[in-house]
């Protein structure tokens, strides 16, 4: 037990100094994107990994977060932190509203329905003139680096720390869920829907709680991303590719495990960013070939994800799984 805390504190310390070990905007950008996808993957994992509902439409919540805070900033001059909470509440509400009809569907049908929802939102925003339509939005630039405006022009480091702290909070939350009654409900629904029902679990309600938490976190990342990129349009934040990548990160890393999405994100983001830098200039798509090939490689040889590949299954698997393993 003591040993585990040493590892945790050590990892936090390493994470805290990393931006100064690798200075320069590009490595820092890569680290920020690793954290963005680690948080998104962890959020997806709550619904997809623990509760077993494979969603391919998480870009919806990401986009809602990005748009809500940006519009609140433009229209009411509301600072992005308030906008972030507002967006997260809206995203969770949308998730619950959408969840009612879609959770009646199982397996592939549910996944397909979430893809459709994602497309629907993108088209809706493309044609919604009030939020800039296809032209997109640029958050007003606030001169000077201020934490309140969530804009930092001189250095990327503050974005890194915002996301780093968010990531730690999300991990702690998932850890708590994992060990609570709710966590057991999630896994019961995942293992066997019928068995869960027959033991008196309100499965729809459990799934709604899972999707609401998942959407809430996803939307918060959307806000930070919008302030980081300082430009959003429906093709950027409602992209189907975001939904797929989020799901990929969790599955590649090891779905249903606390640290799975983090490892998935490290590997996936580093691979995509650096394969592009090293091989992308040729214009022959070699970077994408290598990237795709490695995903296939990991998936084929180790379906339990990167955590399984590293043999870390026992230590990091939730207690209930340890007993069955």
């Amino acid at each position, binding site marked *: 037990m003591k040993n585990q805390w040493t590892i945790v504190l050590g990892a936090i310390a390493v994470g805290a100094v990393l931006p100064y070990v*690798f200075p320069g905007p*590009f490595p820092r950008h890569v680290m920020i994107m690793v954290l963005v996808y680690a948080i998104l993957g962890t959020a997806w994992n709550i619904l997809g990994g623990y509760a077993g509902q494979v969603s391919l439409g998480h870009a919806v919540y990401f986009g809602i977060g990005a748009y809500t805070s940006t519009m609140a900033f433009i229209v009411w001059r509301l600072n992005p932190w308030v906008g972030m909470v507002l967006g997260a509440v809206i995203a969770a509400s949308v998730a619950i509203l959408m969840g009612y009809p879609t959770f009646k569907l199982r397996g592939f049908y549910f996944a397909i329905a979430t893809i459709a929802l994602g497309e629907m939102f993108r088209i809706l925003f*493309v*044609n919604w003139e009030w939020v800039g339509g296809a032209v997109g939005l640029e958050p007003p630039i606030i001169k000077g680096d201020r934490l309140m405006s969530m804009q930092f022009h001189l250095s990327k480091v503050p974005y890194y720390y915002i996301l780093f702290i968010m990531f730690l909070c999300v991990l702690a939350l998932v850890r708590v869920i994992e060990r609570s009654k709710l966590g057991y409900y999630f896994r019961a629904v995942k293992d066997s829907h019928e068995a869960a029902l027959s033991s008196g679990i309100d499965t729809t309600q459990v799934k709604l709680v899972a999707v609401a938490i998942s959407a809430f976190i996803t939307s918060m990342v959307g806000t930070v991303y919008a302030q980081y990129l*300082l430009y959003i349009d429906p093709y950027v934040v409602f992209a189907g590719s975001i939904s797929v990548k989020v799901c990929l990160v969790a599955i590649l890393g090891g779905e249903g495990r606390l640290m799975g999405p983090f490892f998935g994100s490290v590997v996936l983001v580093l691979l995509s960013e650096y394969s592009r830098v090293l091989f*992308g200039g040729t214009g022959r798509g070699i*970077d994408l070939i290598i990237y795709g090939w490695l995903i296939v490689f990991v998936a084929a040889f180790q379906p339990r994800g990167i955590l399984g590949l590293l*043999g870390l299954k026992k230590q990091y698997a939730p207690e209930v799984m340890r007993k069955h393993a």
Partner: protein
Amino acid sequence: MKRSLVRLAIMLPVLALVFGLLAVPILGKVDTVKVGVIYPLTGSAAATGKDYIAAYQLAADIVNNKMDLDFPFARTEGIPALGGAMIEIVPADSQGSPEVGRAEAERLISSVKPTALMGCHHSAVTKTASQAAERFGTVFLCPDSTSPALTERGYEWFFRSGPTDTTFIEDTFDFIEDLKKARGLKVETVAIVSEDTEFGKNISVVEEQMAATRGYRVVEKITFQNNSTNVNSEVLRLKRANPDVILMAAYTSDTILFVRTFKEQKYTPPAVIGQRAGFISPEIFTTLGKDADYLFTTNVWAPDLGEKRPIVKRINELYRAKTGKDLTGDYARAFTGAFILVDAINRAGSVNPEAIRKALLATDYPGSQLIVPWAGVRFDQKTHQNTLGRGIITQAIGGVYRTVWPFDLASQEAVWPVPAWDKR
């Protein structure tokens, strides 16, 4: 024990790779002027991106080598004021994504340390990539993106040598009015058809405003989904509205789909004027064949411009030797942008960013030394938009675009109204 050794053997190289990659140093020489060019080199626009790079390479070849060409910097080696320093083009892949475009701009600025950045075809990518340049105080010369919003931001380090959508739409209406005067053509109603990304949306807004101020009646305004699979109802609406001219903004696949649907429904609009994009992609000739005939489009370049100016023909031949294709408006603009930059660096006599910025502001490049039909290049002191850029109008005949406007550059007369499908 054995298993954990195997695991260790897998883990260590992975970790080494991960950290090794983070520390990749990208070193460079000192006697070269590096220009970072950011274009989509993978994804749906990859072919376009590669041709852009070829145009930049051609510009670099002309500057770097002694060539028997009547063109600036051709008869010398390198940039004269910098003691013959060579131009080096450093391509980077934006994948057509604003996020990746900005990351690549930052990476180039911090590791390659380019003298200037250029790009990026997609307006949304240019928007975010130039943000990075602005923050780091690096000159960003955009030769191609046309969204008017780009220069309206009033950035200090951002310059645009190409015309904006607004200029091309003005050209479109000037062309119609000139034709009306010259031939007594009756054009009173227009239909505006545009796709639903930033490109099409911007254009439809400007077209609608300009139609109103110039006294045209908009009888139909259609927005269709980018990459559509069916436009039957759109064409039916156009048929019913029966406009004197259709103004269209569409990418390649949609342009092809519209022309095919026109033919299927036996509807011949008197004239269709496109706004570049799909209309100037070579694919419309390979896919549509003769059906592409008589399409009009705004343009910045056409092969027949070379018939009147030998130098334009020579440059096109050099490009053809490199890629097997003719220049198009996109690549001619990029090639031109490269020379505007080299000219500014040469006048600045240094690679100091502030000196180059001042030199760009003082640019007064004559139209006679350009391969595009502009009056020249002179940047607005506040927005940094080239005020002398303009477009041409071309019409497709037999698989090539020929210039029909302005009349002094035209190699043939505009066919308007166009012959019906069964009379071709």
